[in-house]
Protein backbone atom coordinates (compact mmCIF):
# COMPACT_ATOMS: atom_id res chain seq x y z
CA UNK A 1 0.00 0.00 0.00
CA UNK A 2 1.23 3.49 -0.80
CA UNK A 3 1.55 5.51 2.40
CA UNK A 4 2.42 8.64 0.40
CA UNK A 5 -0.78 8.53 -1.60
CA UNK A 6 -2.82 7.73 1.46
CA UNK A 7 -1.44 10.70 3.39
CA UNK A 8 -1.97 12.91 0.35
CA UNK A 9 -5.56 11.71 0.09
CA UNK A 10 -6.13 12.54 3.74
CA UNK A 11 -4.87 16.07 3.08
CA UNK A 12 -7.45 16.62 0.37
CA UNK A 13 -10.18 17.49 2.84
CA UNK A 14 -7.99 20.25 4.34
CA UNK A 15 -4.53 21.08 5.71
CA UNK A 16 -3.33 19.04 8.71
CA UNK A 17 -0.40 18.91 11.06
CA UNK A 18 1.98 15.98 11.01
CA UNK A 19 0.65 14.50 14.25
CA UNK A 20 -2.92 14.92 13.05
CA UNK A 21 -2.10 13.12 9.80
CA UNK A 22 -0.64 10.20 11.71
CA UNK A 23 -3.69 10.00 13.94
CA UNK A 24 -6.09 10.08 10.97
CA UNK A 25 -4.08 7.40 9.18
CA UNK A 26 -3.94 5.09 12.22
CA UNK A 27 -7.63 5.54 12.87
CA UNK A 28 -8.77 4.81 9.32
CA UNK A 29 -6.15 2.45 7.91
CA UNK A 30 -3.59 1.53 10.54
CA UNK A 31 -5.51 -0.73 12.92
CA UNK A 32 -2.92 -3.46 12.81
CA UNK A 33 0.03 -1.34 11.68
CA UNK A 34 0.11 2.21 13.06
CA UNK A 35 2.60 4.57 11.40
CA UNK A 36 5.82 5.61 13.12
CA UNK A 37 6.40 9.34 13.35
CA UNK A 38 9.59 8.75 11.39
CA UNK A 39 7.58 7.34 8.48
CA UNK A 40 5.29 10.36 8.49
CA UNK A 41 8.19 12.83 8.34
CA UNK A 42 10.19 11.00 5.73
CA UNK A 43 7.07 10.62 3.59
CA UNK A 44 6.06 14.25 4.03
CA UNK A 45 9.52 15.56 3.18
CA UNK A 46 9.51 13.46 0.01
CA UNK A 47 6.06 14.82 -0.93
CA UNK A 48 7.30 18.34 -0.15
CA UNK A 49 10.36 17.90 -2.33
CA UNK A 50 8.17 16.62 -5.19
CA UNK A 51 5.83 19.59 -4.91
CA UNK A 52 2.81 17.48 -3.97
CA UNK A 53 2.34 19.25 -0.62
CA UNK A 54 3.40 22.62 0.78
CA UNK A 55 3.94 23.87 4.30
CA UNK A 56 0.91 25.88 5.25
CA UNK A 57 2.07 27.04 8.67
CA UNK A 58 4.24 26.10 11.64
CA UNK A 59 3.00 26.02 15.19
CA UNK A 60 5.04 27.57 17.93
CA UNK A 61 7.22 25.05 19.75
CA UNK A 62 9.02 23.77 16.65
CA UNK A 63 9.58 20.11 15.83
CA UNK A 64 8.53 18.50 12.56
CA UNK A 65 5.17 17.36 13.92
CA UNK A 66 4.22 21.02 14.32
CA UNK A 67 4.33 21.67 10.58
CA UNK A 68 1.00 22.10 8.92
CA UNK A 69 0.81 20.59 5.42
CA UNK A 70 -1.55 21.41 2.55
CA UNK A 71 -1.99 19.46 -0.66
CA UNK A 72 -1.07 21.20 -3.95
CA UNK A 73 -2.81 20.94 -7.32
CA UNK A 74 -0.09 18.52 -8.42
CA UNK A 75 -0.82 16.49 -5.28
CA UNK A 76 -4.52 16.26 -6.08
CA UNK A 77 -3.70 15.13 -9.62
CA UNK A 78 -1.36 12.51 -8.20
CA UNK A 79 -4.03 11.08 -5.85
CA UNK A 80 -6.52 11.08 -8.70
CA UNK A 81 -4.15 9.13 -10.91
CA UNK A 82 -3.39 6.60 -8.18
CA UNK A 83 -7.06 6.02 -7.40
CA UNK A 84 -8.02 5.70 -11.05
CA UNK A 85 -5.28 3.20 -11.91
CA UNK A 86 -6.28 -0.38 -11.15
CA UNK A 87 -3.74 -2.37 -9.17
CA UNK A 88 -1.93 -5.19 -10.86
CA UNK A 89 -4.08 -8.20 -9.93
CA UNK A 90 -2.22 -10.26 -7.37
CA UNK A 91 -3.13 -11.99 -4.13
CA UNK A 92 -3.39 -10.04 -0.88
CA UNK A 93 -4.32 -6.71 -2.39
CA UNK A 94 -7.11 -6.12 0.09
CA UNK A 95 -5.48 -3.44 2.21
CA UNK A 96 -4.58 -1.29 -0.83
CA UNK A 97 -8.02 -1.73 -2.34
CA UNK A 98 -9.72 -0.98 0.94
CA UNK A 99 -7.65 2.18 1.32
CA UNK A 100 -8.51 3.33 -2.17
CA UNK A 101 -12.21 2.82 -1.62
CA UNK A 102 -12.26 4.65 1.72
CA UNK A 103 -10.23 7.53 0.32
CA UNK A 104 -12.54 7.80 -2.66
CA UNK A 105 -15.52 8.03 -0.31
CA UNK A 106 -13.73 10.58 1.89
CA UNK A 107 -12.96 12.77 -1.12
CA UNK A 108 -16.35 12.43 -2.86
CA UNK A 109 -15.00 10.44 -5.77
CA UNK A 110 -16.83 7.57 -7.45
CA UNK A 111 -15.84 4.53 -5.37
CA UNK A 112 -18.07 2.20 -7.43
CA UNK A 113 -16.06 3.01 -10.56
CA UNK A 114 -12.79 2.24 -8.77
CA UNK A 115 -14.17 -1.15 -7.70
CA UNK A 116 -15.52 -1.89 -11.17
CA UNK A 117 -12.34 -1.01 -12.99
CA UNK A 118 -10.44 -3.25 -10.57
CA UNK A 119 -12.99 -6.00 -11.14
CA UNK A 120 -12.49 -5.71 -14.86
CA UNK A 121 -8.70 -5.79 -14.45
CA UNK A 122 -8.96 -8.92 -12.33
CA UNK A 123 -11.13 -10.71 -14.85
CA UNK A 124 -8.73 -9.74 -17.61
CA UNK A 125 -5.91 -11.41 -15.70
CA UNK A 126 -8.12 -14.44 -15.02
CA UNK A 127 -8.76 -14.82 -18.76
CA UNK A 128 -5.03 -14.80 -19.46
CA UNK A 129 -4.44 -17.45 -16.79
CA UNK A 130 -7.36 -19.56 -18.02
CA UNK A 131 -5.95 -19.47 -21.52
CA UNK A 132 -2.47 -20.39 -20.28
CA UNK A 133 -3.98 -23.22 -18.29
CA UNK A 134 -5.82 -24.57 -21.31
CA UNK A 135 -2.62 -24.72 -23.34
CA UNK A 136 -0.22 -25.75 -20.60
CA UNK A 137 0.88 -28.96 -18.94
CA UNK A 138 -0.22 -30.12 -15.50
CA UNK A 139 2.33 -27.95 -13.69
CA UNK A 140 1.08 -24.85 -15.54
CA UNK A 141 -2.47 -25.83 -14.72
CA UNK A 142 -1.79 -26.14 -11.01
CA UNK A 143 0.15 -22.88 -10.83
CA UNK A 144 -2.53 -21.01 -12.78
CA UNK A 145 -5.28 -22.56 -10.66
CA UNK A 146 -3.65 -21.29 -7.49
CA UNK A 147 -3.56 -17.76 -8.86
CA UNK A 148 -7.10 -18.10 -10.24
CA UNK A 149 -8.58 -19.13 -6.89
CA UNK A 150 -6.94 -16.15 -5.16
CA UNK A 151 -8.07 -13.71 -7.82
CA UNK A 152 -11.56 -15.14 -7.56
CA UNK A 153 -11.56 -14.47 -3.83
CA UNK A 154 -10.50 -10.86 -4.47
CA UNK A 155 -13.21 -10.51 -7.03
CA UNK A 156 -15.84 -11.74 -4.62
CA UNK A 157 -14.61 -9.17 -2.14
CA UNK A 158 -14.87 -6.45 -4.79
CA UNK A 159 -18.45 -7.50 -5.56
CA UNK A 160 -19.42 -7.63 -1.90
CA UNK A 161 -17.85 -4.23 -1.23
CA UNK A 162 -19.72 -2.77 -4.21
CA UNK A 163 -22.95 -4.06 -2.70
CA UNK A 164 -22.07 -2.51 0.67
CA UNK A 165 -20.77 0.81 -0.59
CA UNK A 166 -23.72 2.76 0.79
CA UNK A 167 -23.14 1.43 4.29
CA UNK A 168 -19.40 1.96 4.07
CA UNK A 169 -19.95 5.57 2.97
CA UNK A 170 -22.06 6.15 6.08
CA UNK A 171 -19.45 4.56 8.34
CA UNK A 172 -16.62 6.55 6.80
CA UNK A 173 -18.46 9.86 7.10
CA UNK A 174 -18.71 9.48 10.87
Amino acid at each position, binding site marked *: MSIGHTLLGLLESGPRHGYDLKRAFDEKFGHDRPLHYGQVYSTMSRLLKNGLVEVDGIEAGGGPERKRYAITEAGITDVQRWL*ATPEKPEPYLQSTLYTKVVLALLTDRNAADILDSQRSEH*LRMMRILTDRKRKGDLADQLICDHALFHLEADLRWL*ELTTARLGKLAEAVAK
Partner: protein
Amino acid sequence: MTPTGSLLIATDLRKAYGPTTALDGAEFSIHPGEVVAVMGPSGSGKSTLLHCLAGIVPPDSGSIIYNGREMATMSDTERSALRRSEFGFVFQFGQLVPELTCVENVALPLRLNGTSRKEAEKTALGWMQRLEVDDLARKRPGEISGGQGQRVAVSRALVTSPRVLFADEPTGALDSLNGERVMELLTEAARSTNAAVVLVTHEARVAAYSDREIVVRDGKSRDMERVV
Protein backbone atom coordinates in the same frame (compact mmCIF):
# COMPACT_ATOMS: atom_id res chain seq x y z
CA MET B 1 -25.82 2.44 -29.97
CA THR B 2 -25.90 -0.48 -32.40
CA PRO B 3 -22.50 -2.15 -32.56
CA THR B 4 -21.99 -3.13 -36.16
CA GLY B 5 -21.96 -6.82 -36.93
CA SER B 6 -23.94 -7.73 -33.82
CA LEU B 7 -26.14 -10.78 -34.09
CA LEU B 8 -28.31 -9.86 -31.13
CA ILE B 9 -28.77 -6.35 -29.77
CA ALA B 10 -31.01 -5.30 -26.91
CA THR B 11 -31.54 -1.71 -25.80
CA ASP B 12 -33.34 -0.21 -22.83
CA LEU B 13 -35.04 -3.42 -21.73
CA ARG B 14 -37.57 -3.06 -18.94
CA LYS B 15 -39.44 -5.83 -17.22
CA ALA B 16 -41.46 -5.85 -14.01
CA TYR B 17 -43.13 -8.74 -12.23
CA GLY B 18 -45.89 -6.99 -10.33
CA PRO B 19 -44.16 -4.58 -7.97
CA THR B 20 -40.71 -6.13 -8.63
CA THR B 21 -38.52 -4.47 -11.22
CA ALA B 22 -36.43 -7.21 -12.79
CA LEU B 23 -34.95 -5.19 -15.66
CA ASP B 24 -34.52 -1.45 -15.54
CA GLY B 25 -33.03 -0.29 -18.82
CA ALA B 26 -30.64 -3.18 -19.50
CA GLU B 27 -28.56 -3.29 -22.68
CA PHE B 28 -26.84 -6.17 -24.42
CA SER B 29 -25.11 -7.02 -27.66
CA ILE B 30 -23.20 -9.99 -28.98
CA HIS B 31 -21.34 -10.92 -32.18
CA PRO B 32 -21.29 -14.30 -33.89
CA GLY B 33 -18.58 -16.43 -32.28
CA GLU B 34 -18.39 -14.27 -29.19
CA VAL B 35 -18.76 -15.54 -25.61
CA VAL B 36 -20.22 -12.87 -23.33
CA ALA B 37 -20.54 -13.48 -19.59
CA VAL B 38 -23.50 -11.96 -17.76
CA MET B 39 -22.51 -11.56 -14.11
CA GLY B 40 -24.00 -9.90 -11.05
CA PRO B 41 -25.56 -10.61 -7.66
CA SER B 42 -28.45 -12.97 -7.10
CA GLY B 43 -31.80 -11.46 -8.03
CA SER B 44 -30.20 -8.71 -10.12
CA GLY B 45 -32.01 -9.73 -13.33
CA LYS B 46 -29.52 -11.98 -15.15
CA SER B 47 -31.95 -14.81 -15.90
CA THR B 48 -34.69 -12.36 -16.81
CA LEU B 49 -32.32 -10.73 -19.29
CA LEU B 50 -31.46 -14.12 -20.80
CA HIS B 51 -35.15 -15.10 -21.05
CA CYS B 52 -35.96 -11.82 -22.80
CA LEU B 53 -33.04 -12.14 -25.22
CA ALA B 54 -34.09 -15.69 -26.07
CA GLY B 55 -37.69 -14.69 -26.72
CA ILE B 56 -38.98 -16.81 -23.84
CA VAL B 57 -40.30 -13.83 -21.87
CA PRO B 58 -41.48 -10.61 -23.54
CA PRO B 59 -39.99 -7.41 -22.07
CA ASP B 60 -42.43 -4.65 -21.04
CA SER B 61 -40.54 -2.23 -23.26
CA GLY B 62 -37.29 -1.85 -25.13
CA SER B 63 -35.97 -3.38 -28.29
CA ILE B 64 -34.40 -6.75 -29.09
CA ILE B 65 -33.06 -7.15 -32.58
CA TYR B 66 -31.97 -10.61 -33.68
CA ASN B 67 -30.25 -10.87 -37.03
CA GLY B 68 -31.72 -7.53 -38.12
CA ARG B 69 -35.29 -8.26 -37.02
CA GLU B 70 -37.18 -6.79 -34.08
CA MET B 71 -38.34 -9.74 -31.96
CA ALA B 72 -41.49 -7.97 -30.73
CA THR B 73 -42.82 -7.83 -34.29
CA MET B 74 -42.49 -11.61 -34.78
CA SER B 75 -45.47 -13.89 -34.25
CA ASP B 76 -45.40 -16.48 -31.47
CA THR B 77 -44.95 -19.18 -34.10
CA GLU B 78 -41.96 -17.38 -35.58
CA ARG B 79 -40.41 -16.90 -32.17
CA SER B 80 -40.76 -20.53 -31.22
CA ALA B 81 -39.36 -21.62 -34.58
CA LEU B 82 -36.39 -19.37 -33.88
CA ARG B 83 -35.90 -20.93 -30.46
CA ARG B 84 -36.04 -24.42 -31.93
CA SER B 85 -33.74 -23.92 -34.89
CA GLU B 86 -31.38 -21.02 -34.15
CA PHE B 87 -31.06 -21.01 -30.37
CA GLY B 88 -29.71 -23.59 -27.98
CA PHE B 89 -30.25 -23.72 -24.22
CA VAL B 90 -28.37 -25.07 -21.22
CA PHE B 91 -29.69 -24.57 -17.71
CA GLN B 92 -28.48 -25.49 -14.26
CA PHE B 93 -30.67 -28.54 -13.57
CA GLY B 94 -33.26 -30.97 -14.73
CA GLN B 95 -33.30 -30.57 -18.44
CA LEU B 96 -33.01 -34.13 -19.63
CA VAL B 97 -36.13 -36.21 -20.21
CA PRO B 98 -35.77 -39.10 -17.74
CA GLU B 99 -37.65 -41.65 -19.88
CA LEU B 100 -35.35 -41.21 -22.88
CA THR B 101 -31.80 -42.50 -23.26
CA CYS B 102 -29.02 -39.92 -23.41
CA VAL B 103 -28.64 -40.15 -27.17
CA GLU B 104 -32.42 -39.82 -27.59
CA ASN B 105 -32.30 -36.74 -25.39
CA VAL B 106 -29.54 -35.19 -27.47
CA ALA B 107 -31.35 -36.07 -30.72
CA LEU B 108 -34.66 -34.64 -29.50
CA PRO B 109 -34.33 -31.08 -30.91
CA LEU B 110 -33.55 -32.53 -34.34
CA ARG B 111 -36.48 -34.96 -34.11
CA LEU B 112 -38.77 -32.02 -33.24
CA ASN B 113 -37.53 -30.27 -36.38
CA GLY B 114 -38.53 -33.28 -38.46
CA THR B 115 -35.18 -35.05 -38.89
CA SER B 116 -35.38 -38.84 -39.19
CA ARG B 117 -34.48 -40.87 -36.13
CA LYS B 118 -31.42 -42.45 -37.70
CA GLU B 119 -30.04 -39.17 -39.01
CA ALA B 120 -30.78 -37.37 -35.74
CA GLU B 121 -29.06 -39.96 -33.58
CA LYS B 122 -26.01 -40.00 -35.81
CA THR B 123 -25.57 -36.26 -35.46
CA ALA B 124 -26.31 -36.55 -31.75
CA LEU B 125 -23.58 -39.14 -31.28
CA GLY B 126 -21.09 -36.89 -33.05
CA TRP B 127 -21.77 -34.13 -30.52
CA MET B 128 -21.64 -36.55 -27.62
CA GLN B 129 -18.21 -37.63 -28.82
CA ARG B 130 -16.99 -34.03 -28.80
CA LEU B 131 -18.32 -33.60 -25.28
CA GLU B 132 -16.71 -36.94 -24.29
CA VAL B 133 -19.97 -38.67 -23.28
CA ASP B 134 -20.64 -40.93 -26.29
CA ASP B 135 -20.11 -44.03 -24.12
CA LEU B 136 -23.22 -43.02 -22.15
CA ALA B 137 -25.46 -42.95 -25.22
CA ARG B 138 -27.70 -45.84 -24.19
CA LYS B 139 -27.98 -44.93 -20.51
CA ARG B 140 -30.85 -42.96 -19.02
CA PRO B 141 -30.29 -39.63 -17.22
CA GLY B 142 -30.97 -41.31 -13.85
CA GLU B 143 -27.96 -43.57 -14.39
CA ILE B 144 -25.29 -40.91 -14.97
CA SER B 145 -23.58 -38.29 -12.79
CA GLY B 146 -24.46 -34.60 -12.66
CA GLY B 147 -21.33 -33.61 -14.55
CA GLN B 148 -21.99 -36.19 -17.25
CA GLY B 149 -25.61 -35.05 -17.45
CA GLN B 150 -24.46 -31.48 -17.99
CA ARG B 151 -22.24 -32.56 -20.89
CA VAL B 152 -25.18 -34.44 -22.38
CA ALA B 153 -27.25 -31.27 -21.99
CA VAL B 154 -24.56 -29.22 -23.73
CA SER B 155 -24.50 -31.77 -26.57
CA ARG B 156 -28.25 -31.39 -26.89
CA ALA B 157 -28.01 -27.61 -26.92
CA LEU B 158 -25.47 -27.71 -29.73
CA VAL B 159 -27.02 -30.49 -31.83
CA THR B 160 -28.97 -28.10 -34.08
CA SER B 161 -25.81 -25.98 -34.59
CA PRO B 162 -27.53 -22.97 -33.05
CA ARG B 163 -26.33 -19.46 -33.84
CA VAL B 164 -26.82 -18.44 -30.22
CA LEU B 165 -26.29 -20.64 -27.20
CA PHE B 166 -28.00 -19.43 -24.03
CA ALA B 167 -26.45 -20.89 -20.89
CA ASP B 168 -27.81 -20.01 -17.46
CA GLU B 169 -25.39 -21.17 -14.73
CA PRO B 170 -24.42 -24.20 -16.82
CA THR B 171 -21.85 -25.28 -14.23
CA GLY B 172 -23.78 -24.17 -11.16
CA ALA B 173 -24.28 -27.69 -9.83
CA LEU B 174 -20.80 -29.02 -10.65
CA ASP B 175 -17.52 -29.10 -8.74
CA SER B 176 -14.77 -26.89 -10.09
CA LEU B 177 -12.93 -29.57 -12.06
CA ASN B 178 -16.08 -30.77 -13.84
CA GLY B 179 -17.38 -27.25 -14.23
CA GLU B 180 -14.22 -26.12 -15.94
CA ARG B 181 -14.12 -29.13 -18.25
CA VAL B 182 -17.71 -28.39 -19.29
CA MET B 183 -16.77 -24.74 -19.92
CA GLU B 184 -13.74 -25.76 -21.93
CA LEU B 185 -15.73 -28.14 -24.12
CA LEU B 186 -18.65 -25.76 -24.42
CA THR B 187 -16.57 -22.75 -25.49
CA GLU B 188 -14.44 -24.88 -27.83
CA ALA B 189 -17.53 -26.31 -29.53
CA ALA B 190 -19.19 -22.91 -29.76
CA ARG B 191 -16.08 -21.32 -31.28
CA SER B 192 -15.73 -24.07 -33.84
CA THR B 193 -19.29 -23.43 -35.09
CA ASN B 194 -19.05 -19.65 -34.71
CA ALA B 195 -22.01 -19.69 -32.31
CA ALA B 196 -22.50 -16.76 -29.96
CA VAL B 197 -22.72 -17.73 -26.28
CA VAL B 198 -24.68 -15.79 -23.66
CA LEU B 199 -23.23 -17.16 -20.44
CA VAL B 200 -24.99 -16.28 -17.20
CA THR B 201 -22.76 -17.00 -14.22
CA HIS B 202 -21.87 -15.51 -10.88
CA GLU B 203 -18.57 -17.39 -10.80
CA ALA B 204 -15.53 -15.47 -11.95
CA ARG B 205 -13.62 -18.61 -12.88
CA VAL B 206 -16.44 -19.59 -15.23
CA ALA B 207 -16.67 -16.07 -16.61
CA ALA B 208 -12.94 -16.24 -17.37
CA TYR B 209 -13.84 -18.47 -20.32
CA SER B 210 -15.69 -15.55 -21.92
CA ASP B 211 -14.34 -12.86 -24.24
CA ARG B 212 -15.88 -10.04 -22.22
CA GLU B 213 -18.40 -9.51 -19.46
CA ILE B 214 -21.33 -7.35 -18.49
CA VAL B 215 -22.49 -6.95 -14.90
CA VAL B 216 -26.18 -6.68 -14.06
CA ARG B 217 -27.08 -4.86 -10.85
CA ASP B 218 -30.64 -3.91 -9.90
CA GLY B 219 -31.82 -4.62 -13.43
CA LYS B 220 -29.24 -2.31 -15.02
CA SER B 221 -26.39 -3.64 -17.10
CA ARG B 222 -22.86 -2.35 -17.13
CA ASP B 223 -20.51 -3.09 -20.00
CA MET B 224 -17.24 -3.72 -18.19
CA GLU B 225 -15.18 -2.78 -21.23
CA ARG B 226 -16.43 0.73 -20.84
CA VAL B 227 -15.60 1.27 -17.20
CA VAL B 228 -13.45 4.37 -16.89
